[in-house]
């Protein structure tokens, strides 16, 4: 058995880079340091179905095994013929593949969107309106004495987040956890809130109301009502004092606030609260990004087009407006007439109204496993898995780029290679039709 060290985990945006993989006969048979979820990704479960060859549906709806050449040809024909193709996903692959993807979208005058539009898209809209004061994880570990998790449950979604950055000892926080005040804001008594010093049990859909009251109180104004979001005025004042008295505060936030009523405005006002807190304390924030490289797509798309997601190349010039050009928008409004899915699973994570449109149009899936998306796909192109079978760049949730490592070999093409071949073929078709 061989031990491969310093492996980067391709699951969540924490991007733990201290994984040790146990490799036998070019297969990962075990892990050290990985969380339950990361471990599952590295070792695969018995019975999980992996596509070993490209697939195309026949007229009876049955999947038929085929070659990459054949599947890429058919996929290229679909994309070239579409009047408004949608290319969605991107968050479970490396930046170099994403870059080819943005190129492909531009050449096919497509809409390109990533999973941010169903997770932290609202955070992007918010930071575009009011700003983005962040720090890297090491700052949290070394300096933070007040840590807030708002609308997120790291014990479940980012299992090593707390242990690596909050419980860990840092340069100025030699005692680790006991040097820090942990505040969790969640309507539920979550496994994370159980670890907190202060749990603000905010009423559901009331995050904005609570933040508005906290901000006004922070500015020295009286809170208008005795109770806001189910929390008494005095308790709100105590929380505000705890934040103001921080030496170095950090706000982590997740889906509990991006998905509840008002979406990006909850984040907007939370960001502004953090900004204003800097008049009293040092305070920063980090969004709890889900997929391990959801951040990377936003970075790549931004430096290539100027916009982070929901980019519409229809007119040959990048345009941007989430709400109009998001994957769920164009599916639900029936704007798109062909869809390519890569490195994500909208079949599992989109609402039923969007899936109904996916069922009406041709769907190409670049996907290693049998998933709800491949159930709806007409063409399946299986790739090697990034971070295990191929390398490439990923960006951690706060923007630190890390090189994903290749641990074992694969016969399959990488996402990057599949996209490059698709791009080449689409360009040939487009040139020929001119």
């Amino acid at each position, binding site marked *: 058995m061989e031990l491969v060290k310093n492996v980067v985990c391709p699951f969540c945006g924490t991007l733990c880079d201290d994984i040790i993989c146990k490799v036998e006969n070019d297969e990962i048979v075990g892990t050290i340091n990985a969380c339950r979820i990361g471990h599952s990704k590295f070792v695969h479960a018995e019975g999980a179905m992996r596509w070993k060859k490209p697939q195309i549906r026949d007229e009876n709806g049955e999947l038929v095994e085929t070659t990459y050449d054949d599947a890429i040809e058919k996929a290229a024909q679909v994309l070239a013929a579409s009047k408004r193709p949608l290319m969605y996903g991107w968050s479970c692959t490396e930046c170099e593949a994403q870059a080819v993807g943005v190129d492909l979208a531009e050449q096919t005058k497509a809409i390109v969107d990533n999973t941010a539009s169903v997770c932290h898209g609202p955070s992007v809209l918010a930071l575009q309106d009011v700003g983005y004061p*962040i720090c890297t994880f090491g700052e949290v570990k070394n300096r933070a004495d007040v840590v807030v998790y708002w609308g997120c449950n790291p014990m479940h979604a980012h299992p090593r987040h707390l242990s690596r950055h909050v419980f860990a000892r840092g340069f100025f926080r030699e005692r680790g956890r006991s040097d820090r005040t942990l505040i969790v804001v969640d309507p539920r008594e979550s496994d994370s809130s159980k670890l907190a010093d202060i749990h603000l049990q905010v009423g559901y859909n009331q995050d904005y109301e609570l933040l508005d009251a906290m901000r006004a109180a922070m500015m020295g104004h009286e809170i208008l009502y005795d109770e806001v979001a189910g929390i008494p005025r005095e308790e709100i004042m105590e929380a505000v004092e705890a934040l103001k008295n921080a030496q170095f505060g950090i706000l982590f936030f997740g889906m509990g606030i991006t998905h509840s009523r008002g979406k990006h405005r909850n984040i907007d006002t939370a960001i502004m609260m953090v900004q204003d807190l800097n008049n009293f304390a040092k305070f920063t924030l980090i969004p709890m990004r889900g997929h391990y490289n959801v951040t990377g797509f936003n970075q790549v798309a*931004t430096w290539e087009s100027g916009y982070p997601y929901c980019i519409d190349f229809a007119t040959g010039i990048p345009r941007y407006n989430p709400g109009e050009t998001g994957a769920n928008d164009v599916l639900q409004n029936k704007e798109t007439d062909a869809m390519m899915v890569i490195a994500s699973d909208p079949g599992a994570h989109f609402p039923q109204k969007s899936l109904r449109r996916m069922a009406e149009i041709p769907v190409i899936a670049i996907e290693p496993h049998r998933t709800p998306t491949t159930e709806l796909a007409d063409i399946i192109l299986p790739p090697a898995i990034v971070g295990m079978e191929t390398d490439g760049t990923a960006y951690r949730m706060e923007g*630190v780029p890390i090189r994903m490592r290749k641990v074992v070999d694969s016969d399959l093409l990488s996402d990057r290679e599949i996209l490059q071949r698709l791009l080449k073929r689409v360009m040939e078709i487009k040139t020929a039709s001119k």
Partner: protein
Amino acid sequence: MEHIIKNGFVYDPLNEVDGEKMDICIKDGKIVDSVSADANVIDATGKIVMPGGVDPHAHVAGAKVNVGRMYRPEDSKKDVEAAATGGRAGSGFSVPSTFMTGQRYAQMGYTTVMEAAMPPLLARHTHEEFHDTPIIDHAAFPLFGNNWFVMEYLKEGDVDGCAAYASWLLKATKGYTIKIVNPGGTEAWAWGGNVHGIHDPSPYFDIEAAEIIKGLAQVNEMLGLPHPIHLHCNDLGHPGNYETTLASFDVPKGIKVNAKTGSRDAVLYATHVQFHSYGGTSWRDVVSEAPTIANYVNKNDHIVMDIGQVTLDETTTMTADGPMEFDLHSLNGLKWANCDVELETGSGVVPFIYAARAPVPALQWAVGMELFLLTEDAKKVCLTTDSPNAGPFTRYPRVISWLMSNRARTDLMEGELHKWAQRKSSIATIDREYSFLEIAQVTRATPAKVLGLSDTKGHLGAGADADVAIYNFNPEIQNPSADYRALEAAFQHASLVLKDGIPVVKEGVVVNPTLRGRTYWVDTMLDETVYNEVVADVEKQFKQFYSVNFANYPVQDSYLPHSTPVKGVIQ
């Protein structure tokens, strides 16, 4: 492939060519003395010929640049481009996307651009963006001025250790120079503070900016780096800061130049000095101290500076000077982005509107112009806008028109520009106009030389890279002072640009958008024993205090497809 550029008016200060009509010969991407009769003839009759432009300080690639793009869709939307043939589309007025960045520099005849601030932990990001930035050669400046290791070594007086660490970090990040931003101040900002002046110690590390500047200047020369320390002084943008600026300039004075490559004379490169030349005590009584600063530069030979000229646009400010950006946000109320980077540095981003009708921007414009025009020797000045801080790089042609035309400046001052420009500076009394030779000096020769790249960049002598810009302006017929608008137009869209002998722009249009430039970085080693000890120590610290593993920190070679190491001291 051979080319011969015939009959152009050539401006090549490093070879003392001042507008002479002469032929430039190119073979296999290099300037040569002569070519065969088969050479492709490029007719430059009635046109200006210069070496490719060299930008020594701009923010074009990396984490905070991309935040600038990402969080300003309203800026992206107002300037968009469809793809050039074979190229890529893009967007962004003040912070263009990478493809647009490379193309627009090339359109102006620029072929070399330095990214002025790279957080070491995020170095990979900068290199990824370089990969998607067409045409221009480039390098990035890793940030040293608030680095824990640097501060610890220098506090202990261990300059050798600091030098070993610096050489490791330059290699690990594939960086080019020692960049210092608000030394000590950005570390203070990690606790919400700042330092003021060069003798205000940073919290915990208890080290003064002066010690950091001096120590790193010594390290720089020990390592024989091509470029001197690249200093963004403390107190940027504060009225009264010129005293800090002058004190900072004096710190490395007396250290001997020891560049192993190139032929620089300076041990200090001071950047965007416009932002550091203010007198007074507040924004009410602020005045220009540019004449004082220019006077210092005139009298001292250890320094070269760039200006950071305000262009009077709506733009996006971005800097590793974290506390300064929070101050700016508090002042203008616009959206504030920030990123503190563990053990190393920080950054901030805030949009800013330099309205010509507003008093402070008008004064800032005047301060920059005074610095340009009162510094006697163009060999000490580089033209920059600290893009996009004082304005986007796409305004360089306008800055050139202001420098070459007193009329252009007067028209502006008598037009919409706020009277503070005239009232609080001496700009209205200056009638100096730059010559084409001086323009070539501040946009080519000075930056190439001070960067240590003048063997191959910034001139048209034999052996230089065949980076050539040809502009549609006839100095025999046209008067740049009177016809400053035509001048600006000519420099905005060059008639022909060659990069390594390959045409990349023809009549203002990018014709070779898939070309990619070199990445310069410094590969240096002083003493292997000390180096190994230092690296071992760094690895130990990494485990405890960084959030990435030591093994995953250095930028892999695969990120530099056109890697061009510059060797310093190797033992």
